[in-house]
């Protein structure tokens, strides 16, 4: 294709997106659109899959059967979300094996929030409430994104995610209304998860390299700072309601803006964790790669069995 042809295709493509038309897998798309979507969608899928690890840690120690079935269902949902997103990413012409390879070699990133440890049962409450809460804020606008398979996957994800946040908040309510030790445990979990949850919504707008292009392609509908403000404004009253204190001495209602002002975020910590120096980065990758390698014989056996059955069928 000549450069001129590509230019006119690109112009037509941008116009389609501006008209809110969806782009489907076999449609022509600029290479950069394809690459950006592979990066973001696979990163999203990896986050769902790695996200099972910190919570899986507590399934056997859930305090009651009610909590245990809920946590099991939630972790199973995360696996499902990872699968919706992986198959949506594959429609862009990349294989599942390549995607796993990118995760396992550290070439692809996943949400850095999962590099923090889950030390107590209250962490399961805090994750559902805060981490899933922040994820919902990130994900709802994606239900309208320009790439059809991504938007469809996100609609399914968003429908399922609200139970996750409610089960987390319910855990926090119970602990906050429990013994002084339980309340303290809930407060401690909030103290540790609050700032990483704010970081989860991404670098500030002036430092975010992908925002402008992503807004144009409707991969993003609000900037990181807007999403963060929305998260804070909706979460602070939820903490107040159960008598927990947000660990930010600068947090203050701003009447004029109709929003909360909040303190500075430790972005050094964020970049350290992104670069692999968080408390659990190595552990998470070891668990993930280990599961993949230890499962190899199962995958091979299933394939061999399927081939054997097929051959037998043909012989009849």
């Amino acid at each position, binding site marked *: 294709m000549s450069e001129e042809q590509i230019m006119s295709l690109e112009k037509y493509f941008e116009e389609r997106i501006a008209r809110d038309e969806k782009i489907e897998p076999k449609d022509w798309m600029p290479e950069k659109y394809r690459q950006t979507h592979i990066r973001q969608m696979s990163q999203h899928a990896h986050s769902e899959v790695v996200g099972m690890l910190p919570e899986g840690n507590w399934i056997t120690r859930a305090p009651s059967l009610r909590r245990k079935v809920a946590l099991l269902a939630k972790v*199973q949902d995360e696996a499902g979300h990872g*699968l919706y997103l992986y198959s949506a990413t*594959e429609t862009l012409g990349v294989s599942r*094996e390549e995607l796993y390879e990118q995760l396992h070699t550290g070439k692809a990133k996943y949400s850095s929030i999962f590099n923090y440890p889950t030390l107590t049962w209250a962490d399961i409450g805090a994750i559902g409430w805060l981490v899933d809460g922040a994820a919902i804020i990130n994900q709802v606008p994606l239900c309208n994104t320009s790439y059809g398979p991504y938007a*469809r996957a996100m609609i399914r994800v968003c429908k*399922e995610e609200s139970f996750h946040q409610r089960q987390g908040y319910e855990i926090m309510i119970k602990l906050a209304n429990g013994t002084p030790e339980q309340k303290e445990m809930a407060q401690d979990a909030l103290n540790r998860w609050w700032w990483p949850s704010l970081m989860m919504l991404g670098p500030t707008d002036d430092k975010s390299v992908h925002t402008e292009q992503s807004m144009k392609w409707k991969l993003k509908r609000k900037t990181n700072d807007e999403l963060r403000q929305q998260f804070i404004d909706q979460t602070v009253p939820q903490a107040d309601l159960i008598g927990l204190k947000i660990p930010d001495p600068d947090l203050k209602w701003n009447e004029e803006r109709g929003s909360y002002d909040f303190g500075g975020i430790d972005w050094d910590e964020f970049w350290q964790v992104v670069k692999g120096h968080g408390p659990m980065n190595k552990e998470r990758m070891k668990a993930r790669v280990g599961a993949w390698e230890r499962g190899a014989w199962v995958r091979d056996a*299933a*394939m*061999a069995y399927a081939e054997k059955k097929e051959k037998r069928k043909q012989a009849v």
Partner: protein
Amino acid sequence: MATKDWPLWEIFVRSKNGLEHRHFGSLHAADAEMALENARDVYTRRNEGVSIWVVESKHITASNPENYGELFEPAQDKVYRHPTFYDLPDEVKHM
């Protein structure tokens, strides 16, 4: 043994009797039976379906968006295929 990757399957789910099967997404599985079982777990965890079809993706032939014009434009100028094309007096009822 050289690892062979599980093939890709397209999943169609009927949400309730009376409705058609609709494309829900895809997944990897070693064979059709496993594709059905996996589809049950991946796509119908909350009573989303009463029946599932699985088709190996390689068996689907899809039209090419580049041929959109020759395939679909011929239908665009045939307004006489729609009831509104026909002029009837307002007094006529039930038509």
